[in-house]
């Protein structure tokens, strides 16, 4: 589809998704690349969030959802019968639209999952992980003196960075972001965007966004979804400057959506 020498991290093959009898995703096929930011854009209800949730099997939580097709990560189809969805989510972290820190202290927010997964042991090792995660998410300087305060006492933007720190702490390979900045003010948004650019050195990032400028600013690749179909998927530059599909062009230029 796209000719380049990037390493494919996630290979999606003929993915169909049904909510009961209602088909929400139609035959999605795409390669998502390692250490790149891929933005998923499209009008509301086009299936981009649903697609994102397929990648870490969050849709399994909805009993009526049926999925066929393959998502191959590191040469293994995550929908194979011998793959446990909980262990998939350990490798593929997720950041949500609404900042949703646990109602615990800032420290516990970051430390809880790594401790449970046995990534670190309680004590110094854990303290170090919390520190590096918070440094990576750019929150350390703001919270280093109040780690025992509740995570919910932070501002919205800080909470979202705390959620990112929490995700980094479980050492995932892929980070999924579902409209991570749509509930934030422009300054917090800017910080998160800068953070995304920094994080792509180490992680593969896939983000859903309604903000076209954001996609243009941060994404290396952009996928345009419409009515459950992947209309066009290419380098961001191409999508925004020289889209091949008429629908993409209309959406980008604001003629519908």
């Amino acid at each position: 589809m796209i000719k380049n020498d990037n390493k494919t991290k996630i290979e999606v093959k003929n993915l169909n998704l049904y909510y009961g009898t209602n088909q929400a995703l139609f035959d999605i096929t795409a390669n998502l690349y390692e250490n790149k930011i891929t933005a998923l854009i499209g009008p509301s209800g086009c299936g981009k969030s649903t697609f994102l949730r397929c990648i870490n099997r969050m849709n399994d939580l909805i009993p009526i959802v049926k999925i066929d097709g393959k998502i191959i990560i590191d040469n293994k189809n995550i929908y194979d019968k011998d793959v446990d969805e909980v262990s998939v989510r350990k490798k593929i972290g997720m950041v949500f639209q609404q900042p949703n820190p646990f109602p615990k202290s800032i420290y516990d927010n970051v430390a809880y999952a790594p401790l449970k997964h046995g990534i670190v042991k309680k004590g110094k090792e854990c303290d170090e992980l919390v520190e590096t995660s918070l440094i990576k998410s750019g929150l350390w300087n703001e919270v280093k003196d109040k780690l025992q305060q509740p995570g919910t006492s932070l501002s919205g933007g800080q909470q979202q960075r705390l959620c990112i720190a929490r995700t980094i702490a479980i050492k995932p390979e892929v980070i999924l972001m579902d409209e991570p900045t749509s509930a934030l003010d422009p300054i917090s948004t800017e910080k998160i965007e800068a953070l995304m650019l920094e994080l792509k050195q180490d992680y593969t990032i896939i983000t859903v966004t309604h903000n076209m400028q954001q996609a243009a600013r941060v994404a290396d690749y952009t996928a345009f979804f419409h009515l459950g179909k992947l209309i066009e998927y290419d380098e961001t530059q191409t999508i925004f400057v020289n889209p091949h599909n008429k629908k993409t062009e209309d959406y980008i230029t604001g003629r519908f959506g």
Partner: protein
Amino acid sequence: MIKRKKKNKQENPFYDPSLKKRHTSAARFKKFTLTSLIFSIAFLAFFLFDIVGKGIPAFSVAYVKVDITFNEKSIEDTRFAVEKEYREVVSRAWLRDIPHLLKENPQLMNTTQNIWVLADDQVDQYLKGHHYKLKEKEITFINELYSKGLIEKKFNTIFFTNGDSKIPEYAGLYSGIIGSILTLIITMLVAFPIGVMTAIYLEEFADDNKFTRFIEININNLAAIPAILFGLLGLAIFINLFGMPRSSPLVGGLTLALMTLPIIIVSSRAALRAVPDNIRQAGYGLGLNKIQVTRDHVLPLAFPGVLTGSILGLSHAMGETAPLIIIGMIAFIPDAPSMVTQAATVMPAQLFTWAGMPEGMYIEKTAAGIMVLLTILISLNTIAIYLRKKFEVKW
């Protein structure tokens, strides 16, 4: 008049001809709602006033200072322990206890002691100015003693240390209180874990299908079933089928647990449902499994609600009488139980028995018992509110 209206219309672009009517009807509606409030407050105030007014006298009881002769004769027939003219004045129940008293204090044998002893209930009622049944002769004798300071009203410790009795001045709430405590311990031990676990299953694990919806409707209906039916159920299952001892706190507690379960399930479910879903999403997004998400993130948030519901269920169970009548906890049981398998009575059941007694002193004691029960219930509810505030997570 018409002219002025026209003028108004021109000057005020927001002029509304129906304004006055609207204001009167709004004021009328407000008055209606306020009247209802005043009515309910008046009922409550009257109820409390009546209970407290009737109950307060029960906290003091008449004592008389009298010579008690302890000897073989007075053990044989305890009436001979006092002088003849005192026989109608001193409590018969107290006199009957003399052999017991001597057993505990053998040094009293063959002595005469001038001590304060419990007076007969009629003397007590006479002193309190209630209805009494005394002969002229007795009244003059009592008045004489009273003027000498040989009859006095003292704080009624018997009310809290004695069990039930057929002699009014000797009856107390102790066995009822102990019975209630044992019964409620059983109730909570059974109803709390089962109720909370059921709620967790229904809220966090069960699929939303016809079967679970059927269960849900039935649980809600169970919460509204007349309590006496639970008594019949307890009788049929625990006593007849399993052969558990009748009138025991064990059976009473299990029966009340059946009754409290739906309340705990419904309130726990509401508390779990109020936990925002994005907490669960956050947990699953980090690769946590269901147990970790439910136990460490959802349950702590729901806990204040679960606790409040359970304590309210408990206080509901505490005031319940009907099902316990069916399983025999209404029987006359003067001794406090020391085990959950012994026969016992509970506070409300004892109050129910007292309320049916003809003697005036039982009327007081019923009211005083209600005061004790209400105090415990209000304390429980206060604890519920306190715990809710304490564990509430700032959002």
